[in-house]
């Protein structure tokens, strides 16, 4: 064993609380106290390992230092893949660092030390949740989770794949939690706290599995940390500070039944840190001696407050080595190299020691394969599935196709991870690429001229800074997950309409949804105030000599020094000014919002109609508070001026839905391609005492018009047909050229909403019935179906209705539920529910196809709309147990699939099917995946008895399967499934 104390590893004499060696063994991190903040430093490992490197001036020892923690750093830990460094400190924060690729060496601006940061590590995410000092952090196997524990008595599990998402908070400790360790197969996490307990938590449901208190009952809370450790074979958990017969020990806890029969004894003071060697060893074969089978064993280092370090082999009863007086103060942390032969130890005294062992001393380390086979023997293959990538990579790829998918995936992963991950040594500045070939120098020359400068409303200068580099935070960017813009509240659903759908909000609702005069003049900016630079003349105080002595030259220096560090006393003034600017910017943004709202509401469809309708409503409101009664009056045929007619007592039971009011004239755009406009002018001419209404249509510049005997209340159209409903409850349907297709249909009650789509007409009547006709076939698809089944509750009303291209009617209710009427099932089916907790909690973001834009135009998306996004956000906040979340997501996705199927929305069906398949692949549910594939493939051999349809919604099922298979191929575990169906598809294609 060799021992080295590299004196250059120091935090200027301040305590070092944590040390961790990078998985690739080329560098290590230390964490501790800085000058007036916490400090994380990254060091080069080479000068520790080799003396010649230590002496070589060209090899930098310190690679990077980060002063960003506000208070002492208690723990630094590299992720298992080596890409990230997590640090936790007394500032209650956990920071996750990633190496920035595009920046070369640089000094910290203004820092007194001229030491350059050779590598740039950037904080990519800050995890805020703890209310007290963070004492320990730990990455789970495979870097799925990051756990942090704190003096706030809690442990927080973070989703390491979607920072800063929290998975859960583990509560149960009643004292400061000071140490964490993951089970190497990922089934448990263990924590040790000052409450005299060691707790083991299950990762499957995040509940406590064991609470071990006996060995700790005599312990006092005397140590700064309690870093416990799990053996690499997973069989033993060794605690920090425990007591046995009033002597300090490190308690060995057996995985089997959490028995506590053994301990490591010998330290004179409390054990602060235990760290298992990551390797499992077997006895070195002596030359000449016959190879006899020996049990593999583990190696464990124990550090204590008594300043000594002991190293144990589980095959020996006594420690392998004990080193006393290595440090002046307590040992704080230990880290092994991945090779298992080197170890770094740090101490409160601010120094670090490196220990180098030989194979003769420790034994022969098992290779990864042997270690995996031990894991598989103990835990079975099912747990091995949840363990390392390394295991999967040893799986033999049996199919060339799957090899292709794997390679493609790796390529894209490499492209994503950026140059920093691919080539960690490349530190060349890559700024040029960001700036279109213009060099930084060129930019700097003209920056003053080129930079954009504007004036704010109060006359202040505002400079738009020139962005010279993006941050390469990549996979942590929250924008990735919320890329669907969330519409400002108050914008109406109609903004999401596209030409292929015919829909609108029912007018009564529309006025309450998006048409409020949001542009409130009261909110606009106050009169610009004088920004007042302090340039007032100040002519007094002209005095004293101008003599310059050397003393006076130095004197102001001292006086001036304080000015560098004290905040300006002028701040209060600016605060006032700032407050005003703040106010202004906020009102600015409100105005903008309002403008956007207006655009959204009026922009796409029926602009005039909506505007007019609103005006009409407003006018009539005067002196007439009851709108629904007024609506009832519309039912009277030949009403000349509806506003003057005294409404008869409205038959409320019959008229459940509001009806639009009659207007003098309105127009609407029926379709964009070809562009069809519809103009309605009511009561144009008087013939023999009765008034006629004119319907004019212009289609691609060609006009036609027709006359109707009664005022038109609502009109709608598609590229194929046009339909109008009149005051006399007559519904007329015309072809796109103005030919009447059907004789007028008599409706039972006035029309509330009317839609056309393709050659379908849908009418929602005020009596809450729904009818859909297929004009081409002259058949009814839905016949006077009552909405009363779904209109439960007194206040529920229809807020939205639409007709899909396939003639499926959909209605959205004010209670957030959306139904569609399935004509094949002859029943109402629920397709969306905004209060559905499944929607809120489903988390399938990882399964979203990155390159595909989500289908936002399908009927399902329109009905679920914003709500779906809200669900995405909500799931980030909620801390549901993983298995529950998994089930909820599964249920949600299956709901979506079924809804898309009922709505006959083929594109959406395909979209959700792929997400569903990806989710099944990610979560490893082979059972459902197989059933899905089976359904898509159908019977390979034709038989009369089968009822299998080769298509669904016009999509060929086998084509869908062809799209699903690559997704399955991404997970090597399903390669058998992949091969099986790939082969059968090939077989069918050749037939």
């Amino acid at each position, binding site marked *: 064993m060799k021992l080295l104390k590299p004196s250059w590893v120091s935090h200027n004499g301040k305590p070092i609380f944590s040390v961790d060696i990078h998985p690739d063994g080329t560098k290590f991190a230390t964490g501790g106290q800085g000058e007036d903040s916490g400090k994380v430093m990254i060091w080069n490992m080479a000068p520790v390992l080799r003396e010649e490197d230590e002496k070589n001036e060209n090899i930098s020892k310190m690679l990077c230092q980060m002063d960003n923690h506000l208070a002492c750093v208690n723990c630094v830990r590299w992720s298992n893949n080596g890409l990230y460094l997590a640090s936790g400190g007394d500032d209650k924060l956990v920071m996750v660092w990633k190496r920035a690729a595009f920046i070369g060496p640089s000094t910290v601006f203004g820092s007194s030390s001229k030491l350059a940061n050779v590598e740039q590590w950037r904080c990519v995410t800050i995890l805020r949740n703890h209310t007290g000092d963070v004492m320990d952090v730990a990455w789970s196997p495979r870097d799925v989770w990051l756990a942090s524990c704190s003096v706030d008595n809690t442990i927080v599990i973070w989703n390491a794949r979607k920072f800063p998402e929290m998975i859960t908070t583990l509560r149960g400790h009643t004292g400061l939690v000071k140490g964490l360790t993951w089970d190497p197969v990922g089934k448990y996490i263990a924590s040790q706290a000052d409450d005299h307990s060691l707790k083991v938590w299950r990762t499957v449901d995040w509940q406590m599995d064991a609470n071990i208190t006996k060995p700790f009952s005599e312990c006092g809370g005397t140590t700064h940390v309690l870093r416990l450790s799990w053996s690499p074979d997973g069989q033993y958990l060794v605690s920090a500070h425990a007591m046995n017969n009033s002597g300090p020990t490190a308690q060995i806890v057996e995985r089997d039944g959490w028995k506590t029969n053994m301990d490591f004894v010998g330290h004179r003071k409390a054990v602060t840190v235990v760290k298992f060697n990551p390797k499992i060893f077997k006895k070195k074969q002596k030359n000449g001696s016959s190879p006899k089978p020996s049990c593999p064993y583990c190696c464990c280092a124990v550090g204590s407050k008594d300043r000594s370090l002991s190293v144990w082999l589980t095959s020996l009863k006594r420690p392998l080595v004990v080193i006393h007086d290595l440090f002046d103060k307590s040992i704080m942390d230990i880290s092994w190299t991945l090779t298992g032969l080197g170890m770094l130890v740090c101490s409160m005294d601010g120094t670090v020691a490196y220990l180098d062992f030989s194979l003769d001393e420790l034994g022969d380390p098992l290779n990864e394969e042997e270690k995996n086979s031990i894991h598989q023997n103990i835990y079975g293959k099912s747990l091995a599935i949840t363990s390392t990538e390394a295991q999967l990579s040893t799986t033999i790829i049996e199919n060339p196709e799957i090899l292709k998918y794997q390679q493609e995936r790796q390529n894209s992963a490499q492209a994503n991870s950026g140059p920093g991950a691919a080539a960690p040594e490349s530190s060349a500045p890559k700024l040029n690429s960001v700036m279109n070939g213009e060099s930084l120098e060129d930019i*700097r020359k003209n*920056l003053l001229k080129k930079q954009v400068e504007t004036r704010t409303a109060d006359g202040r*200068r505002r400079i738009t800074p020139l962005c*010279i580099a993006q941050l390469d935070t990549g996979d942590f960017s929250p924008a990735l997950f919320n890329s669907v813009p969330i519409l400002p509240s108050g914008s109406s659903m109609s903004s999401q309409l596209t030409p292929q759908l015919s829909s609108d909000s029912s007018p009564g609702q529309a006025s309450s949804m998006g048409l409020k005069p949001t542009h409130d003049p009261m909110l606009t900016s106050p009169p610009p105030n004088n920004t007042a630079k302090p340039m007032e003349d100040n002519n007094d105080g002209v005095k004293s000599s*101008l003599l310059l002595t050397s003393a006076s030259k130095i004197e102001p*220096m001292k006086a001036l020094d304080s000015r560098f*560090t004290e905040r300006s*006393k002028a701040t209060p*003034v600016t605060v006032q000014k700032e407050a005003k600017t703040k106010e202004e910017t906020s009102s600015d943004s409100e105005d903008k919002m309002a403008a956007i709202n207006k655009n959204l509401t009026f922009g796409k469809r029926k602009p005039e109609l909506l505007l007019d309708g609103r005006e009409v409503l407003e006018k009539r409101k005067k002196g007439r508070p009851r709108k629904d009664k007024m609506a009832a009056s519309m039912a009277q045929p030949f009403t000349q001026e509806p506003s003057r007619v005294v409404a008869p007592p409205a038959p409320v039971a019959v008229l459940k839905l509001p009806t639009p009011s009659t207007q003098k004239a309105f127009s609407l755009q029926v379709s964009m391609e070809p562009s069809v406009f519809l103009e309605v002018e009511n009561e144009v001419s008087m013939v023999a005492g009765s008034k006629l209404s004119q319907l004019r249509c212009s289609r691609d510049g060609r006009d036609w018009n027709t006359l109707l005997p009664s005022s038109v209340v609502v009109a709608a159209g598609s590229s194929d047909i046009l339909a109008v409903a009149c005051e006399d409850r007559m519904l007329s349907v015309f072809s796109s050229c103005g030919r009447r297709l059907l004789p007028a249909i008599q409706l039972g009650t006035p029309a509330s909403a009317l839609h056309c789509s393709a050659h379908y007409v849908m009418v929602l009547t005020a009596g809450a019935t729904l009818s859909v006709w297929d004009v081409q076939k002259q058949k009814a698809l839905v016949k006077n179906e009552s909405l009363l089944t779904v209109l439960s509750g007194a206040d529920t009303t229809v807020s939205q209705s639409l007709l899909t291209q396939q003639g499926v009617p959909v209605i959205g209710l004010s209670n957030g539920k959306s139904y569609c009427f399935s004509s094949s099932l002859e029943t109402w089916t629920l397709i969306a529910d905004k209060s559905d907790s499944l929607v809120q909690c489903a988390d399938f973001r990882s399964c979203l196809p990155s390159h595909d834009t989500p289908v936002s135009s399908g009927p399902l998306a329109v009905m679920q709309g914003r709500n779906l996004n809200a669900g995405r956000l909500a799931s980030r906040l909620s801390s549901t147990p993983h298995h529950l979340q998994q089930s909820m997501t599964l249920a949600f996705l299956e709901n979506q699939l079924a809804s898309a199927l009922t709505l006959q929305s083929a594109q959406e069906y395909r979209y959700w099917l792929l997400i569903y398949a990806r989710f099944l692949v990610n979560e490893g549910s082979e059972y459902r995946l197989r059933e899905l594939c089976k359904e898509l493939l159908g019977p390979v051999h034709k038989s009369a008895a089968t009822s299998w349809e080769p298509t669904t919604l016009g999509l060929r099922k086998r084509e869908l399967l062809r799209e699903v298979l690559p997704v399955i191929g991404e997970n090597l575990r399903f390669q058998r499934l992949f091969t099986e169906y790939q082969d059968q598809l090939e077989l069918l294609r050749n037939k």
Partner: protein
Amino acid sequence: MAKVQVLNVAVLDNPSPFGNPFQFEITFECMEDLAEDLEWKIIYVGSAESEEYDQILDSVLVGPVPAGRHMFVFQADAPNTGLIPESDAVGVTVVLITCTYRSQEFIRIGYYVNNEYTDPELRENPPIKPDYTQRNILASNPRVTRFHINWEGCTERMEDCENVDPSSNSMLPPSCLPGKAPPLGVLPDNSMDCL
């Protein structure tokens, strides 16, 4: 931790005649998109003895600031000589660049400035009106002080908001004109340091 790190400040047009505008090319890096603008100020310390003679040469808003590395040139007019005590017109003083976010100062960069006559004859016999001096900013030795502030919005962290004294604004004497440096000791130190 600070969302904005100043990476470099290059002093342009230095040394230069006293009447030339100050020019600083500021490079900074921002970790997350900022909801509000940064406010930068250049303060010229007229006299070491008293803050009374501080002149805010200019203040600009800089925004919008998305995550990334940015640069801009902050140019401000030279100080008003009339406001500088004649005894301090020649010699060493300080120019400060401060940046605030949500009205909280989080960085202060200070430079020593030496104003002197270039003409040896004037140096021997300084004139009464100290114009025509040359300004030399000691660019190689910036003094950087960073302050911890609350970067989050008030809604997110209520407990931090409580630290911000809401009455500090109302305690301003009504006679105090905006921009004029308030006399010492009258005002509470409006510290919003949220540690």
